[in-house]
Every structure is written in C-alpha cells, then in structure tokens.
C-alpha cells in the first residue's frame, strides 16, 4: 500500500517536473532542430556565440548591471535594515510603513514619478536610470528589517562591549547571522532586475542600450533557433544562482516566514 502510494507520488512529481521543464526542453529542442529537411544543426549556437558579439556583449552588460543593482541594494538594505530593526530614531515606524507601502505599489504607478525625477537628474537614456532606482528600491530594506528584528539584542550589546563600531557590528554580527536571508535578497533582486522590461523601455531611447531581457523580444524574429539559444543564454545566470544558493534560498525564505 505504502509502495503504491509512493509510486503514485513519484509519477505525480515526474509529470509536474515535465510540465515545469517543458519550456526549457522546448527551447533546447528548437535550438538544434531545424525541421524535417535540415534535421539537427548547431548553427543557431554559432550565430549567437561566434558570428556576432551583439548577443554576448548584451549578456555581459546586463549581467554587470544586475550584479551592480543586487550588490548595491543588498549593502544598502543591510545598513538600513539594521537601523530600522535595532536603533531608535524619530519617525522610525512611519518611515518603515512608507517604505512598505512603496514596496507594494505596482511598478506602473512609480514609473512616471521616477521618469520625472530621472529626467531632472539627467540620468535618462543611460544605464544610470536603471541602476540607481534599482539600488534604492525599498524591498530589501523592509525584508531585512523583519529578519534583523529576530536577532537578539544581547549579541549587539556584547559586540559594543568589545568596542565594535556600527560597521563592524553589521559586518561581523548581523550579516553572518542572517546570511541565508541576505543571499536570498541578493538572488531575488538579481532575478527581478534580470527580468526587467518596463523600466528600460520607458527610460532608454536607444534600442542598442536595452538589456538582454528587452532585447530578447526583438531578437531575430524569423529564427526560432536563435531565439531559443538567446533564451538559454538568459537562463544561465539565474540557473547558476538558484543551483548554487538553493540551500540559502530555502533557509532564507523559511527565516522570513518565521520572522
């Protein structure tokens, strides 16, 4: 009885996995299958990886931008989160509520004010228009505030007794204790900026400046092979982060639920 149940469960999960993996498998097949007449061919890989540097240059630029946004937001969120969770200052609760409110606002609502602000700062039509608002997004701060609140205050007091300054407290006490949550934040922000579509379309004028996520939509529309290879290229960093940090991701999400 138990064995049959187990078998059923395995079959169910196999079907589920097949459904979830179908787009990736489809892309893999499309990248090499050229139809009944032509059969298998790796020319699409040649087109993307060797014929022209356009795709790979876009990939590196997008990767750099996303790493910058993720690292920037993570560092900023660590400091701001510590302030909100462990220090008292005037208007602390109001600021946190305002940040949480801004976090839940849909991106379309904040696009126009952001556009006006970026225009006044002179950041439009450059990657600064994507990086700066990305770094100062309130999501990380709110997320880490809730995580840092669960850390005992005694640890911080003990560190202060050992004459640790604020930065040392963050670096040696708070960050190591909340590593899974911080890694989770980093990965989530990376994935969010990697899949960014609306902001580049609104803030950038030149199509050449678009990151890979937007560029992918207009890539060789008559060749499904090239599109598939570009899709697989797009999957690489996200897959790497997920596979490399999957334990931290699980722990980080669990910690958030507990906190």
């Amino acid at each position: 009885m138990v064995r049959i149940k187990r078998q059923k469960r395995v079959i169910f999960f196999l079907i589920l996995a097949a459904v979830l993996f179908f787009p990736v498998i489809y892309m893999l097949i499309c990248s090499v299958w050229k139809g009944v007449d032509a059969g298998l061919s790796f020319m699409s890989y040649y087109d993307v990886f060797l014929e022209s540097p356009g795709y790979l240059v876009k990939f590196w630029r997008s990767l750099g931008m996303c790493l910058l946004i993720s690292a920037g937001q993570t560092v900023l969120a660590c400091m701001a989160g510590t302030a909100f969770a462990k220090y008292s200052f005037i208007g602390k609760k109001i600021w946190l509520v305002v940040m949480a409110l801004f976090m839940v606002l849909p991106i379309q609502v904040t696009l126009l004010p952001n556009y006006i602000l970026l225009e006044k700062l002179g950041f439009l039509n450059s990657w600064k228009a994507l990086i700066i608002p990305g770094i100062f997004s309130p999501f990380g701060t709110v997320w880490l505030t809730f995580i840092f609140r669960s850390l005992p205050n005694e640890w911080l007091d003990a560190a202060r007794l050992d004459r640790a300054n604020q930065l040392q407290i963050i670096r040696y006490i708070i960050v190591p204790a909340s590593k899974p949550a911080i890694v989770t934040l980093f990965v989530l922000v990376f994935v969010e900026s990697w899949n960014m579509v609306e902001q580049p379309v609104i803030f950038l004028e030149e199509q050449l400046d678009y990151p890979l996520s937007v560029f992918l939509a207009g890539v060789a529309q008559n060749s499904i092979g090239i599109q598939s290879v570009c899709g697989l290229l797009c999957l690489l960093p996200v897959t790497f982060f997920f596979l490399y940090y999957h334990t931290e991701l699980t722990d980080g999400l669990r910690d958030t639920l507990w906190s």
Partner: protein
Amino acid sequence: MAKKRVWTAGCAVLILLLTCTVLSMRVEKMMRIEVETVTAVKEEQDSELAKIPISCYNEDKSSFFYAHERKGLFGAELVAVKKESYPIDEEEEMALIVYTEGFDSTGMKPLKIVSQSSWPLEEGDLLVLKEDREVDVVKQIQILACFTAILLPGILLLVRCVKRFSDLRDGNWKAGIESFIIIGIWLGSIFSLTGKLDIPREYLPPEYILDIGFYINEIQEFKLLEYYGRELLICIVCVGFIWFGSILAVFFCCTYRKSRKSK
C-alpha cells in the same frame, strides 16, 4: 560537493562565454563583406535623372544595395540595405535612374551604392569599404599557426584555472588571482593574434567562418601546398611540438602530483 560542482561548471561556462565574446568580435570583423561603392551622378544640374554603373544592379535588375551607416555596439558600422529601383534607360555601361533613388530621404546626400562586393550581398550584411593592400601569405600562415599552437596549451591551462577557481570558494585568493591572470593572458593573446589576421574576405567562406569544406576547396584550388608547402610544413611541425610538449607537461605534472600524494 554539489555546490563545488555548480561553481566549477559556472566558472567553465564563464570562461567559455568570455572566449566566445572575444572570438566573436574578431569573427564579425573578419566576416564583413568588402565592397566598392559609387555615388549617383546627376545628368545635368537641374535634371531629374542620375547615372549609376549598370554593374550596381542585382541580377534581376530591379534593385541595388547601398552601404548605410548606422550606430553599432562599437561605434559606426556599414550595413547593406536593398533599394528597389528600375533603370529607366541604359547608356553604354551606365544606367539612368530617377534622381531621388540615388540619394537619401532628404535628397541631399548621395547613397553609397555598392558596385562590387567580395561575396553576393544580403540585406543586413555588415560591410567594409575595400582597401588596396598586399597580403603577406607567409605571415598569415605564421599567425594562424601561432593561434593553433596556443589552442591546446590554452585549453589545458583553462581547465587548470577552472579547478583553481574552486579554491577561491574556500578563501584561497592567491589561486583566484592566478586564475584571473591566466584567463586575462589567454583572452589577450587570442584577441591580439586574431587581430593580426588580415585575410581578404574572398578567401573566407561566404557565410560561416567554420566552413571546413570551403577551406579544403580553397587550398586545393590555389595550390597552397605547392607554393607554400615548406612554410606550412614548418608551421605544422612547430604546432605539433608545442601540442606534444603541453601533453607531456600535463602528464608529468599529474604523475608528480600523484607521487607526492602517495608519499
């Protein structure tokens, strides 16, 4: 253990993509089709007609290509654009066309109409204006031989780099820096070597640079072995020695490490 594998695979993919990026920059540059261009000449000052060489027209005589300058990833680049046009009349080797067809949309700037190209053009092909230059075949063979020679030792070094990168995870910064330097040298050397290659476009395949059949044909057709057999032989021997030497070095390193471990 799984993390280490993912890290190693990630590093390998990263190095592969970096190498592809550098190579693709060069391949794109080498595969640009060399063209000669002309501009339409007005028949008379106030005439509505202009003349272009009849050779500019495609086979169907209903269109021609012109080189359009656009902004590319690395600055301005020329791209082939097809323009529908029918010659009104033919005079000797020249075709009479409506004046506006030979000029841009403003009617002020004459189009760079392609009169000759190293390979048949297609819309969107990247172009480069043909320059008169003499190609030193021996030098090109030597550069190609150098490129081939560094391939195997380079790949072996990169494999070692990938392994050393896993030490970076454990906080061994020295190994990481060493690997970064090796990767930098590898990328720099393939970039500079491929940059020195100056093969006329007509000796490269029309579409794909890795078209081996085309090269075999070319070697047979131009009797390269007959004219440059000695140089080719020297290069092949040198490449063979370097490859053999690298395999021997790897073999000895592995044996030495194994014996040290067993001690």
